[in-house]
């Protein structure tokens, strides 16, 4: 009797472990969220000429203090700039996947003239919808596919990473920097490389250690990865993940770190050296103006420090004056176009020259970076 029961239980337990395997796999991805109705954010009081309706689709909640938060701030800036000429609305927490297409189609059919999709995974759904709504203009962040009525835009985040690197190179005592990295795509690898180039421009002895967590947002894992890097001697950390966990881990251990995507100084006042902050508002203003004035054209837009799309802000008092000056020089150089981060001679990890002396990388080169520069330790996952 008991034996038979045990058997039955074991079968159930096996089924459960299999189910938990599947569920744990799901847990790493975004949980499907209850579909939210497109929440109209306070439509402006109806003026005489019909206002241009502008819609935004966010992958996370507007309160994430990082990526989506930055997009929503820019939306507010746009609203302020154009007043009653436009009416904006947003839909938050739309997972990348089938739901996205439904939401984009919804927004297009509601009479929005301009629709912003703010994450890479909206690319295909947006492209599909764009083909059906020829009158609507679509703007897609961080993608690479365009259509006659769909434009892509992105921020040169690596310029922020480079400026952070300049500070890191001077602040490190162990000459070891650490990066908590998310997913091995060119954008992230480019940031790690640029961070290292920045650090080595002021301190050629610097080495960068990298730990990949294979997620954009997993605070406990980010903490573990940061701890692991500090345990191995890294005393200044940077991250390409979306939460403030790395900064908080550094604060706890008495090491230094940076804020990423938004100003994170309040999360770790002792550890915080500076924050690389994306500002989407200059671009959003341009896009809306283009549409209002009828000058909208498709294309690929990649804005950086020059256009005010990225900057290093809230530099800590702990950073010595001469280092601040150096950062200021870099910023001015990027603004005026007299300085390029990716200018030869640059060698990859194996010592092979990837950019010859005085050769400046073009955008295609930057979009395809899949190698570590000299000074980064370890291997690019999946690379050779």
């Amino acid at each position, binding site marked *: 009797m008991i034996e038979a029961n045990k058997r039955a239980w074991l079968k159930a337990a096996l089924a*459960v472990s299999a189910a938990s395997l599947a569920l744990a796999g799901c847990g790493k991805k975004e949980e499907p969220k*209850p579909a939210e109705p497109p929440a109209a954010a306070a439509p402006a009081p109806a003026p005489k000429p019909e206002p241009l309706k502008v819609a935004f689709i966010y992958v996370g909640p507007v309160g994430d203090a990082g990526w989506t938060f930055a997009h929503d701030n820019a939306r507010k800036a746009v609203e302020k700039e154009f007043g009653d000429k436009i009416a904006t609305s947003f839909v938050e927490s739309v997972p990348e996947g089938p739901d996205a297409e439904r939401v984009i189609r919804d927004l297009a059919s509601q009479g929005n003239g301009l629709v912003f999709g703010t994450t890479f995974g909206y690319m295909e759904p947006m492209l599909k919808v764009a083909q059906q709504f020829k009158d609507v203009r679509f703007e897609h962040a961080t993608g690479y596919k365009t259509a006659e009525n769909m434009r892509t835009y992105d921020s040169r985040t690596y310029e922020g990473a480079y400026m952070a690197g300049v500070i890191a190179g001077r602040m490190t005592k162990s000459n070891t920097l650490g990066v908590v990295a998310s997913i091995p795509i060119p954008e992230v690898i480019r940031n790690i490389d640029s961070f290292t180039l920045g650090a080595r421009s002021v301190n050629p002895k610097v080495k960068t250690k990298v730990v990949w967590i294979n997620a954009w*947002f997993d605070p406990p894992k980010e903490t573990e990865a940061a*701890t*692991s*890097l500090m345990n191995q001697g890294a005393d200044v950390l940077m991250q390409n993940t979306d939460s403030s966990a790395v900064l908080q881990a550094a604060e706890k251990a008495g090491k230094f770190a940076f804020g990423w995507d938004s100003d994170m100084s309040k999360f770790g006042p002792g550890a915080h050296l500076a924050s690389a902050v994306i500002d989407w508002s200059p671009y959003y203003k341009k896009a809306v103006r283009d549409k209002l004035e009828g000058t909208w054209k498709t294309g690929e837009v990649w804005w950086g420090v020059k256009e005010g799309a990225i900057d290093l802000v809230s530099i800590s008092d702990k950073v010595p004056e001469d280092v601040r000056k150096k950062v200021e020089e870099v910023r001015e150089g990027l603004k005026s176009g007299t300085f390029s981060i990716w200018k030869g001679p640059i060698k990859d990890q194996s010592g092979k020259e990837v950019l010859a002396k005085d050769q400046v990388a073009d955008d295609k080169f930057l979009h395809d970076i899949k190698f570590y520069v000299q000074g980064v330790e*370890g291997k690019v996952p999946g690379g050779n």
Partner: protein
Amino acid sequence: MMEPIALLVAATLSAGTPLALAALGLLVNERAGVVNLGAEGIMLVAAVAGFATAFHSGSTSLGIAAGALAGALLAAVLGGLVIWLNTHQGASGLALSLFGVGFSAFVGLGFVGKSLPPAPPLVLPVLSDLPWLGPALFRHHPMVYLTVALAVLLAWFLDRTRAGLVLRAIGESPESAHALGYPVRRIRLAALMAGGALCGMAGAYISVVYTPLWVEGMVAGRGWIALALTTFATWRPARVLLGAYLFGGVTMLQFHLQGVGVQVASQVLSMLPYLATIVVLALISRNPDWIRANMPASLGKPFHPGR
């Protein structure tokens, strides 16, 4: 070379702590014959409850206590369903888990992007300054030590006390315990709530101490690992503790190896706990004596008094 290893040990201990706490709680449930698949959801709700409390009160201990309370309450709901209404334990637990994921995300909306000051470790007078052992073992948050103490206490309770014997009897044969006059249902409820409280402490530890911030889904599958762990540990507290440090250590080791420049696919490592559990299950079904398994005979079965 010694120093990094000491720090790796330290990181492993704190990474294994939430797993151990939750698995000890689930072990209490299961030794009383109730399987609680709601662990993940309970941990999430407790994580947000603990964070909210710590955020408003400024006290880490209050936060963890709130987590324990939230865990016990949720477990009591599950208890009402599976002990009195005799609903299917597996299905009810899964439902609770899915509910907890959504509910915690909803309640936590206002706390996204907020953070707590880091909780300081407990510094022990002489021990913390020992050359190698200090950084490895004696510079942790009190919860880390408490977890070890709880495991010892639980082993003693189950094997050496009369109350522990009754609990085990109910897990083995509720009918016999009932015939002897023990209130099977109430004891099962108590066990379920105690286990829920431990799961809750694990959840609150994650959001209050380990990563002092709240984000949706931040427990990230640790409840499922804890569930697998009870089986992996063949329902023995000491093995639960070892297993938790083993599974916690695997993640830390993977990050450590990356830092040194050795690549291991993290996806493979995240499968390991479950694979190990399936191996143990296979071993048990061959012959439980091989691994001295302690599986309660009436695990997962409803009990109908008077039938």
